């Protein structure tokens, strides 16, 4: 899945997570740049990064900048928001 524009999903409400998926400059090789801010960073920071990477990999996103602002979202919600943001950031406007 190719990221061609900024895609954003989720909110900053308690229990939710706001995810922004954006394209990276084409010069550097393909990679995922992950920036995570979470109110539960100390307790779940690693788990959040694992879930985000796993979801992106399932979607076939290999080259993107992903910013996460987490308000204590559970894993199912993180997956759903990453998916929605990634689809919104693709040319096909996200829908299967």
């Amino acid at each position, binding site marked *: 899945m190719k990221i061609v524009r900024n895609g954003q999903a989720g909110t900053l409400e308690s*229990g939710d997570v706001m995810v922004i998926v954006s394209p990276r400059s084409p010069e550097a090789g393909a990679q995922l740049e992950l920036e995570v801010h979470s109110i539960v960073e100390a307790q779940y920071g690693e788990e959040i990064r694992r879930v985000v990477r796993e979801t992106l990999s399932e979607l076939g996103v290999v080259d993107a900048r992903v910013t996460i602002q987490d308000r204590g979202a559970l894993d*199912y919600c993180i*997956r*759903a928001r990453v998916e*929605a943001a990634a689809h919104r950031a693709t040319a096909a406007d*996200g829908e*299967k």
Partner: protein
Amino acid sequence: MMIATNAKERIRRSMLFVPGNNPSMIQTCPIYGADTIILDLEDSVAPSQKDAARRLVVHAVRELDFAGAEIAVRVNPPDTEDGKRDIEALKHVDVQVLLIPKAETPEYVVGVDRQLGDLPTALIPMLETPAGVLRGSEIAASCGRVVAIAFGAEDYATSMGIQRTKAGREVFTARCLVAMAARACGVAAIDTVFVDVNDEEGLAADTREAISVGFEGKLSINPRQVETINREFTPTAAQIDRARRVVEAYEDGIRRGLGAIALDGKMIDMPVVQRAQTVLKMAKAAGCDGAGGERE
């Protein structure tokens, strides 16, 4: 197509709407004791967030434990692009029931039936317009997936151009028609929401009114309403006792090969027995089916 065999038998006293794009409400909703949880993709989701809500609901159904509640989703109107995408996405997860908003024709429901193919998903069309209410029995009988029809009084009043009142005189006829259509087709009738979440007494009265004209369940927009609705649909100890005696007398009569069966000097015919069986079913759902403690 075959719907799950228990889908028709299932008790749906309280059906709780939960906004489909709100993770905190979705993950706490199983605690309130609603018989059915309706994850809503329609009215409670802004048009710009339909895609995000759809993905959230799909992941929630796949990954969360809803503690035994029946999981339903209210999709967007199936003749819209969002509605079609909703149904398509939900095919991949274990949703037991779809609520179809603003059903006005049997064909509308049949379209969803076809889209679902071999899946065992049940349907509850919502009758929310005069046209829908008047064709209630056709809609209820439109396909084998329909397990109930639900009345939506707010949209109904809007399309009638009338004001809603707490007493609900303006929707009384429509309610009766929906209940009659359901009975005529052997499906359940589910009543409209009661919008004033702070008026517990009003909710109880409104629920009793619905029960009195033949509804078997009620939609709810706030978790705080679930307990009241469940309580009103729970038969009293005297009703349970009477129903148990009716069923026992009937079964005894069958065993002894009697043609006419009587209890306390009154004839018991088949409709009386069926009503008694429904009472016992409701009692069982409420957890007061004879394990003791409920008789006062």
